[in-house]
């Protein structure tokens, strides 16, 4: 069955210059499909996080080409990239990274308000819905800094989902969560991919987490050593 490609890279390479010139990524070419739960694994220093930041459009200093939804991203202006990120990409980080002065609800709403597609009231409804799916609706009006780590991570996931992005990118999403919360996050990811057909690209070093995903791409020394099985 031919599946729709959401993200594609062609020969991506990147150098670090400090302290000496060093090639972190070498000729990375792969595709990610719609509704796929993709994990990137590799040892520390294999370049998996570096690759994720290139895919996220935040890092523009690389060679090769990146396509999202068959639109060429490489070479776009920084402001255009910000709009693309806002619309197409949701982020989940290891250290949850919520804005501490804002309530959970506001944190979830901010990307949608920036998108400006819906009214303030509609955005609020959507945000409540996301928080409900993630089981943290009762925490909505608390300041983000007052929540536990697992709860904060779920709010961050709700924020990543608010604009219905095509791709959700995660950097060690379960890195500092206990096994119970890890399971919750994992189940949510499965649900996102299967029910909402959004693509998840997660960098992880948790082998169990990777094994349970749809496909695992393994990196070593800046090269892809295994593409995994496309299910």
């Amino acid at each position, binding site marked *: 069955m031919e599946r729709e490609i959401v993200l594609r890279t062609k020969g991506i390479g990147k150098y670090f210059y400090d302290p000496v010139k060093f090639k972190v990524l070498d000729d990375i070419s792969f595709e990610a499909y719609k509704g796929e739960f993709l994990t990137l694994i590799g040892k520390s220093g294999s370049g998996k*996080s570096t690759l994720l*930041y290139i895919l*996220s459009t*935040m*890092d523009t200093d690389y060679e090769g080409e990146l396509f999202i939804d068959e639109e060429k991203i490489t070479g776009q202006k*920084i*402001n255009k990239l*910000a*709009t*693309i*990120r*806002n*619309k197409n990409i949701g*982020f989940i*980080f290891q250290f949850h*990274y*919520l*804005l*501490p*002065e*804002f309530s959970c609800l*506001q944190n979830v709403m*901010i*990307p949608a*308000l*920036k*998108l*400006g597609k819906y*009214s*303030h009231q509609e955005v609020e409804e959507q945000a409540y819905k996301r928080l409900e799916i993630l089981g943290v609706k009762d925490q909505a009006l608390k300041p983000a800094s007052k929540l536990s780590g697992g709860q904060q991570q779920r709010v961050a996931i709700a*924020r990543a989902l608010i604009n219905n992005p095509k791709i959700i990118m995660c*950097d060690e999403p379960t890195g500092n969560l206990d096994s119970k919360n890890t399971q919750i996050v994992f189940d949510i990811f499965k649900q996102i991919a299967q029910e909402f057909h959004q693509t998840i690209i997660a960098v992880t070093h948790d082998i169990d987490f990777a094994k349970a995903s749809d496909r695992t791409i393994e990196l070593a020394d800046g090269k892809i050593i295994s593409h995994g099985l496309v299910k």
Partner: protein
Amino acid sequence: MKSVNTEIALTHILARKRQTLVASMGVAVGIAIYICLNTLIIGTNRYSDNAIFKTTPHIRVYKDDQISQPLSKDTSQKTGTIVIVNPKISNISKNLINPVKLVNDIKNKPEVTAATPMVTANIFYNNGKSQLTGVGWGINIIEADEMFDIQSTWVDGNMRTLLNTPNGIILGVGIADKLSLKMNDNVSIISSIGVIKLMKVVGLFKTSNSVTDKSKSYMNLAAAQQLLGEGPNYVTDIYVEIKNPETAPQYASVISDLTGYTTEDWKSANELFVAGKKIRAVMFLFISWAILLVAAFGIYNILNMTVSQKLNDIAILKANGFSGKDVVRIFVMEAMIMGIIGTTIGFLLAAIIVNLLSRIYIGADLGYFPIQFELSVSLTGLGVGMLVTFLAGYVPARKAARVDPVAIFRK
């Protein structure tokens, strides 16, 4: 609908109320002092201009002394005649010819608001054996009052009495004291050419200048003409008042061309005063901007600190699709909010200070402190305050916009 940038800026501001207030107070003090100083300088300038215009006309038309010319100008030609030259001030009458027409011509100029003929005579005031020298101003008292506001210096008597008393004289209080003269006393006046005239004291005036009070007197134009042994067509000066005193130096030459006589504007007659005014203006400008600069640094400092503390938040915003422009807007808006709070408080503070200052009694002919609320200065102050805070906010905002989210997330 409130934009999301505004919402973020407001949340940041509300999360750090005390810092915002401190930065705002810096601006408030700066703006208050800026407005106060500038109001003060306008007030004092207005007062001192008025003081100058009580004795000096905007433009004075007179016939200048001329140095006598040799009969034969060209000594290089070998005519065989040698002329010995000893130049002196030529003994020509200082009369302005046909003064009535001149005054009318000047009055017809659109810029001119008033013009009045004058005769000044050097005179001696005598009472018994005591004698004082001074200057008698022969004037049309009504016109001169309009120009110099003589009435405000009045101590005793009525201005109209002079009109009805051909030999009336109005003395400075210094003369009256020294010669122990009272109202309605007679005083004998001797002019520089020896004409003696008995005059009646119909008024007394007191200015802020004691030398003036000890020498000056006003009398009717005709009386002054008589003292100089001249007829009713004899006028030595024409005093001109124009709409905008600041243009007097330029307009003086217009009047000079019109009349053919020498003109002197009030600025060249009072160069020391004009220079003093300029020095004051520069000094006050310097002080007020220095204080504003300090206030601006307060805002810059606090925003700079905020940006450094919020590197994480900025990276998150950027990851979520906020562009550099959005980040600049957020932080500039925070600066502007501090600026608005600051300038508003500063404006109110200035209004209170100006009000208090205006109640301080100074005395003399000054009365109360010469300060009053100046709308234009306050508006400039508000504008300057906003400009300064914008610039102080823009620099750290640019720094925030340049934050590289990848560098932050990778730490």
